[in-house]
């Protein structure tokens, strides 16, 4: 997995924001505001080679208390990654 490198995670006025860079700005790239979890996932995606690694690191970070919480965590992270793919922010 690889994050689209025309976007960059930045702090804007105290918020975590995904900003277009370079020609993507000129071409009307969107600005995305992220919550803390989304910002963590995007940070982790930079050096996670695959989804399994990302899910393992997420489990280490968020410490799900039960198998049900673990399943919810995995479902939500997969859904977030799918959203990123649809927005062409993440490539496999």
């Amino acid at each position, binding site marked *: 997995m690889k994050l689209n490198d025309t976007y960059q995670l930045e702090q804007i006025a105290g918020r975590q924001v995904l900003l277009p860079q*370079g*020609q993507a700005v000129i071409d009307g790239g969107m*600005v995305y505001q992220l919550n803390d979890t989304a910002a963590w996932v995007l940070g982790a995606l930079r050096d996670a080679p695959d989804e399994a690694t990302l899910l393992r690191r997420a489990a280490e970070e968020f410490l799900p208390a039960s198998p049900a919480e673990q399943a919810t965590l995995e479902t939500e992270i997969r859904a977030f990654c799918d959203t990123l793919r649809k927005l062409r922010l993440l490539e496999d």
Partner: protein
Amino acid sequence: MRVIDVTGLRIGLDVPDAWIDPGFHPYFTAGAPEACVRLGAAELLQRSGGETYEMEERVTVWPDAVRMLYREDERIIGTLLRPDAPLPEIIAVAKDDAPAPFELMDAIKGSVYCLLQRRGVYVLHSASVILDGRVYAFSAPSGTGKTTHAALWRKVFGAEDFNGDQLAVIAGERPVTAHGLPWCGSSGIARAEALPLGGVFFLERGKENRAEPVDGLQKLALLAQRMVADHFTPGALGRTMNELAPTAQALPCARLTCTMEDAAARVAVAYARRAMRQEEGCA
């Protein structure tokens, strides 16, 4: 050498008078220039490397210079900005020796805006009018109807023109102030004044008239992206947004969905006056 003052930046026009457009005359000032404009040879534009971005013009950025190339049939074929020279300079390359004052004024605009941005001065692409002693700006992509909407404010409420295409704001300035610029697109409407900026409407063409507030990150992003600025070099958009954040916080902004009819101005002015009353109530 003639010197102009553009939102606090003194620029020497080191060119013959025949090359100076009358649009610059209200901006003449005394004092030593902090940057200068001169004419140069075509060879100055021939340089390899750099990062190139495609906009209306082709912009190439090096660590020490910014080149803007215009269409080959333009009277000014390109400019080179050297922002870090002891006296920052904008060198314009003309197609021939025949004076082309309007084209020169237009061609140096982007480079001047780069220099202004380094001082925290940003240029909002907008048509703007004066009503109730304040400037109201209408910002939208070209062709949306900024000029038409400004004309409705004139017709229905007797508003006066401020600038047909852009205005400058200084990041962090209080009250947020609209600074006039000599550049105004093809409108010919440019007042060399500074007045409080009452608000910004982001225009969208629609079948009904509706004004809705925009706040938070959405307001900041809209405002930053409508600035005629360097957003494209690495990290530039983030810097712009951070620098403009206090201005955005203090500036009423609304998304105006509008028709081309008088009612559009009535909706917008009612919104603007309501926002002004709320602001005065908070003060």
